[in-house]
């Protein structure tokens, strides 16, 4: 239609060429992680920069699973991220619903407060939280991390849930309330089932956020028994004798739950990012 065949061919070749660069840039670091994790130890350094190792082995994974604390760290992380995701989604569902459906005194300030806490440099709360949690016995405990992660996730999750509720017509609850339901019952029986994909996405976002957090985990939980996966991996990497193979195998394992959740939340990326425009 537009332009000659030749110029169109050039245009599309260029288009795919540039995209190829992006794809390679996105995948290469992850590929390298996987590659090192399956390269046997004896050739790991000899063939350090080769794109493909001459032999494969799962020995590093065996080391990680059998001879390290990583299973414990993994368990801790799953507990912390899982409970955080469910708790923050529950609380955010309630507050997001209030934001979406009610006009009430003080709403402006509450919304403003949530926005500000999202923008505030969290490093300022590191010291007071350490002191407070120390007094309450919440350092070196998974509960402490769950509380703090849930609080940090709530503003973002609230705005996300609000955007999902905004997409559900108000008339549906009104019809249910006229049909004889209380507002809470209408929320549970009518609105929640319709928001289910959004709720799942919110769980996904919160899980991913909690799974990768390292600053508070590092500061609050120094004992191995309550370390999360990121802390375990980071401390492992600073040991005197660094074993890259098992470490990268552990990195691949850390990636697995995230990949699962990424495909779960993929459809909602735009909604998630606009809801929490500041949250990376």
């Amino acid at each position, binding site marked *: 239609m537009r332009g000659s065949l030749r110029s169109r061919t050039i245009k599309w070749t260029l288009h795919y060429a540039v995209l190829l660069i992006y794809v390679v840039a996105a995948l290469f670091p992850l590929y390298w992680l996987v590659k090192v994790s399956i390269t046997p130890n004896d050739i790991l350094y000899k063939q350090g920069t080769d794109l493909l190792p001459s032999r494969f082995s799962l020995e590093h994974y065996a080391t990680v699973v059998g001879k390290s604390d990583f299973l414990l760290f993994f368990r801790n992380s799953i507990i912390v991220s899982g409970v955080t995701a469910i708790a923050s989604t529950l609380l955010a569902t309630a507050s997001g619903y209030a934001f979406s459906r009610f006009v009430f005194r003080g709403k402006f300030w509450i919304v403003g407060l949530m926005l500000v806490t999202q923008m505030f440099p969290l490093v300022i709360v590191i010291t007071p939280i350490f002191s407070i949690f120390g007094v309450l016995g919440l350092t070196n405990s998974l509960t402490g991390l769950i509380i703090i992660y849930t609080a940090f996730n709530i503003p973002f999750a609230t705005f996300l849930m609000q955007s999902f509720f905004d997409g559900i*017509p108000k*008339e*549906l609850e*009104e*019809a*249910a*309330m*006229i*049909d*004889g*339901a*209380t507002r809470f*019952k209408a929320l549970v029986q*009518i609105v929640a*089932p*319709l928001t289910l994909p959004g709720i799942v996405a919110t769980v996904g976002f919160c899980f991913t956020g909690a799974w990768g957090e390292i600053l508070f985990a590092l500061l609050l939980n120094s004992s191995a028994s309550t370390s999360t996966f990121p802390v375990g991996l980071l401390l492992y990497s600073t040991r005197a004798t660094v074993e890259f193979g098992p470490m990268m195998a552990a990195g691949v394992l850390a990636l697995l739950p995230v990949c699962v959740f990424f495909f779960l939340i993929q459809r909602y990326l735009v909604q998630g990012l606009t809801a929490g425009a500041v949250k990376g």
Partner: protein
Amino acid sequence: MASIEIANVRKDFGAVPVLKGVDLSIASGEFAVLVGPSGCGKSTLLRLIAGLEDASSGDVHIDGRRVNDLPPRDRDIAMVFQSYALYPHMNVRDNMAYSLKLKRTPAARIAEAVGGAAAKLGLEALAGRKPRELSGGQRQRVAMGRAIVRNPKAFLFDEPLSNLDARMREQMRFEIRKLHRDLGATSVYVTHDQIEAMTMADRIVAMNAGIIQQVGTPLELYDDPANMFVAGFIGSPAMNFLDARARRGEHGIAITVGGTAFCTLPQSLSLPEDGHVKIGIRPERIRIGASGGEGVDAAVDMVETTGAASVAHLDLAGQPLKVFTTERLQFAQGQRVPLAFDTGHVCLFDGASGDRLR
């Protein structure tokens, strides 16, 4: 079945008054239609009756009981929404059964009630379908079914037909009316469409700017409007309004339009000080070409025809005037035609306030 009483109800959204003191009583079994342009407060009034909004002041009574503080679920009313508001994740049967389930009605009674409503509305074959698998008209019927299974004290309709195409709308108009005849339940029906109001209402409540303008049977509003708003809103094509001067003479009130004598009206009518009035006359009350009228003539601008009827757009002393007739008209542009009308069909309005002069 129940009566509905609304006493001096006001509603403000923030600083914006939406209802400015409304009094209305709807008799048991009556089909009342609230009609008016968008933003006139008719939907707000309906939602107040339903309990979906709280009145800023004033009282709402249903069946003699003050319901201001009752939540919607305790008011025993059913509502049909403009968007139908069918529960998307439930099939037709469950949509209709939901209210009865909430009341913990025995399953056998639910099945009976839902079956009865479905039969009445011709929905039996669709019982297992989800709302998204239904056409607009079918969804409308399910919304109706959801209302009638409950056997409520009153039905509330919020522009239930506006999402349907013209043909479907005509049919549902007729069906809702028939349903009301069968069930005899008190109904409050909100619409912006004056044809729906005229064809369906026992009584029309015409509203504008948060105030009830007139309450009466369709023909009362049509023939005897209380003000220019009602006169102009009811009827299609709309009533003609002409700027005019009124002066009391020996034989009656002499009306002139653009300096030319137009007609003479009875002495009994009251007049504003400055004599500035509007006269209103319905397009079908004017005849073209017949002599023996008041000797008024106008220039033809354009003729529209639908086949069944024609509307002639005329120019009378610089003011537009429409004439509606079932005759077929053939005129050249600019041609002057004589007009005839019965002065009994001329309504007189105050030029400033728009109130009817009687």
